[in-house]
């Protein structure tokens, strides 16, 4: 279609869609008046039943934990997908070596030390956010992204991740797979030890303490590891194929 026809088709459709949305949204409870009993019930039962103060975390990891399992694997599939889509092709259409070898590091020493200086606190913050997921806002996902940032800063600072014999992308892949599979295994553990998939099988502990909420902190850790690994795989692949990818020889 020409740009003009496309514009007309879209314009007509968008007008219809706008009318439709306004008609539909008009039936929603007016802002601030929501009366959903489901959410209310969960908010009331979360603390007594799960000894965790973060209702959203309890919902995410327990009442609706099965959704989160799917969500973790969406992320996992995307990371594997990026790996597959950006895999090095046979043939000569690669970036000329010279352009490919240019590494996007921070060149000035000052920048480099800033990056290193931030990496430590980011690591601590990430671990903190993961560990407190059942108590305060945050959790595996948010903490995992912060952890990812810490590792990325180390990389940008120019530390030689490839030294030591382990290709970092492989390590990251192992991390994401372990995290995702760990979540599933905890679910199966619930099946074997408590009766239903993802049912809690760990002591609930005292409300408000770090080790409370049963399996929720554990699930948070698996999610944190998974998110960190998956995002590092994605960013690493986008960053530079040659530096980080499997089989750096090709």
């Amino acid at each position: 279609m020409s740009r003009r026809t496309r514009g007309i088709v879209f314009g007509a459709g968008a007008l219809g869609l706008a009318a439709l949305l306004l008609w539909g949204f008009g039936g929603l409870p007016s802002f601030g008046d929501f009366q959903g009993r489901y959410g209310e019930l969960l908010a009331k039962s979360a603390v007594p039943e799960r000894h965790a103060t973060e209702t959203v975390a309890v919902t995410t990891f327990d009442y609706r934990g099965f959704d989160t399992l799917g969500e973790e694997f969406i992320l996992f599939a995307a990371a594997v997908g990026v790996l597959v889509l950006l895999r090095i092709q046979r043939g000569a259409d690669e970036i000329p070596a010279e352009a490919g070898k240019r590494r996007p590091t921070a060149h000035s020493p000052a920048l480099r030390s800033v990056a290193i200086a931030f990496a430590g606190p980011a690591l601590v913050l990430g671990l903190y956010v993961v560990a407190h997921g059942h108590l305060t806002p945050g959790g595996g996902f948010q903490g995992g992204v912060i952890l990812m940032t810490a590792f990325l800063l180390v990389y940008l600072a120019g530390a030689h991740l490839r030294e030591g014999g382990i290709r970092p992308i492989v390590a990251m892949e192992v991390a994401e797979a372990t995290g995702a599979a760990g979540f599933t295994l905890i679910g199966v553990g619930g099946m074997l030890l408590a009766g239903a998939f993802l049912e809690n099988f760990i002591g609930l502990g005292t409300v408000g303490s770090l080790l409370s909420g049963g399996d929720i902190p554990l699930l948070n850790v698996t999610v944190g590891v998974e998110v960190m690994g998956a995002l590092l795989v994605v960013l690493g692949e986008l960053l530079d194929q040659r530096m980080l990818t499997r089989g750096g020889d090709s």
Partner: protein
Amino acid sequence: MELAPLTVAVPLLAAGGLTAASSRVSRATAEVVALAAVLALAALCAIILARTASGTEVYWFGGWEPRADIAIGVSFAVDAIGAGLATLVSGLMIAALVLMWRYRDTDAPHFQVLMLIFVAGMVGFCLSGDLFNMFVFFELMSVAGFALAGYKVEEQEAVEGSLNFAITNTIGSFMLLTGIALVYGRTGALNLAQIGESLAAGHVDGLVIVAFALLAAGFLVKAAVVPFHFWLADAYAVAPTPVCLLFAGAMSELGVYGIGRVWFDCFAGTLALHDDSLRLVLIVAGSLTALLGATMAFAQDHLKRLLAFATIAYVGIFLIGLGLLTSAGVAGAALYVVADGCGKAALFAAVAIVQHRRLHVSERRLRGEGRELPYTAAIFALGALSFASLPPFGSFFAKSVIEDELIKQGYGAVLAVLILTSALTCGAVLRLIGRVFLGWGPVSDREPSRDEEAAPEEEISSARTPAIMFVPALALALASLVIGVIPGTVEAVQAAALHFTDGSSYARVVLDGAAPAAVATPPPYSAPPHAYLYAAITFGTAVGLAGLALFGRRLAPRGSDPLRRLGHAAIGSLHGVHSGHVGDYVAWLVAGVAALGGAFALALS
């Protein structure tokens, strides 16, 4: 039902395990692990299917059973239709993995990992009893599907097809999610049964209609119903052929299933008064899709694109069956999905063999090149007969059930659509058999387009076909036949459809833990005589169309026929609309959502 969560956990654990060990896993290990996981999955699905024959069964994750009449957890609420689809999906996945065995270029284990995640997403979607959980599995299936469709990244077409697939389907997902948000805003529930109960207690207004329209639009994008269908041919034509087995055999059909699920369990209770007008909307949409898909299939030269458009055509027929909104219509559609899913998958598997031997899949260029491949030709022939829905193929009985119901509901004219769709798709396959395997028809007088020069999936052609490639192709082709032969199949599907369409019994089972309502055992089914007549007309038309395409030029000299010129012009403009431009596709998508919403607004308010 204690096994239900394993249907998702087993493939996902296998995927996680393979990835964790990816640097140490050989291709063979990856294949064995994946195949073992999917075999286990198929066994689980079959067990669940047997368990649910007598009605819906429920599994509450985390052990959170409903409390104070509120479903607080996520559930699998499985009936025989959902379990049957899950079994079909896992069966097709077994065939795909066996077919994969001979593909050298598959970056193990990542390909297997994506396949495992893909199948887990599809199975989870079939079994879920929670609207948001369905969305999650829908996304899981989509994300794995995007990566699989773009797998052959070294080809321009694969990259573009996958992009179009990903962008249009992602926008479809947002429509779905907006619909879910509306439903949640009204009912405060996500469990399908609870939503149904809550909606039925309330009033019908714009929100209910728009919510249903948006949910339907989201599912129809995946099902590739006109005008949401554009992405499908682009994506299916470029995906690795084993993946196409799953795409064409099951993924599109899941979109139609999704609409049925939310209609019967959530909306039928509150919108039941209007089902006459909704029926009209769905049948019109289905008919347009069927005719457009079949016409485009007939106009294709690229074998995989041909089958992709045939997929669209049959999705149209499934939508007609479901759109009848009766248990007989659902039964016909469900049986058709299984029979046609196997038949189409067999055809894709046969294309894989052609590709393996001849490296490309352009019908004109392959003229006569298939003379030494008689077994492959036989599989194509079986597929063509299944398309024509000749007795005793499963598709024959499915179609006759739908035909009876169409006549009963006063939509007799739609029979012509069914016949024409089957005839065009069967004719297209017959034509390719004639040209490729028998060398009939004129020698191509034009340069192959770039599209036909698609790079091979393998580097060198093989002198002989490995037997292992025949196994899935033959098994699938026979499956499409056997379904119609086993006594009691039609009746079992009819009983399953009675359970599927009984939303109130479903709600009692899920929310109150009641036993499913018993359904009357359907009487033994025998196809009426006119069904045989229609099948004969279909096949005759198909043979005529194929003959015309192969020998038409010899019968009537070029250009003498204004009808043919008109046909060329029409098909040319159809080709033009399928532009491959993602902006066009999204514009059509938006217009389609508006049109669908407008039609629902007129029909349901």
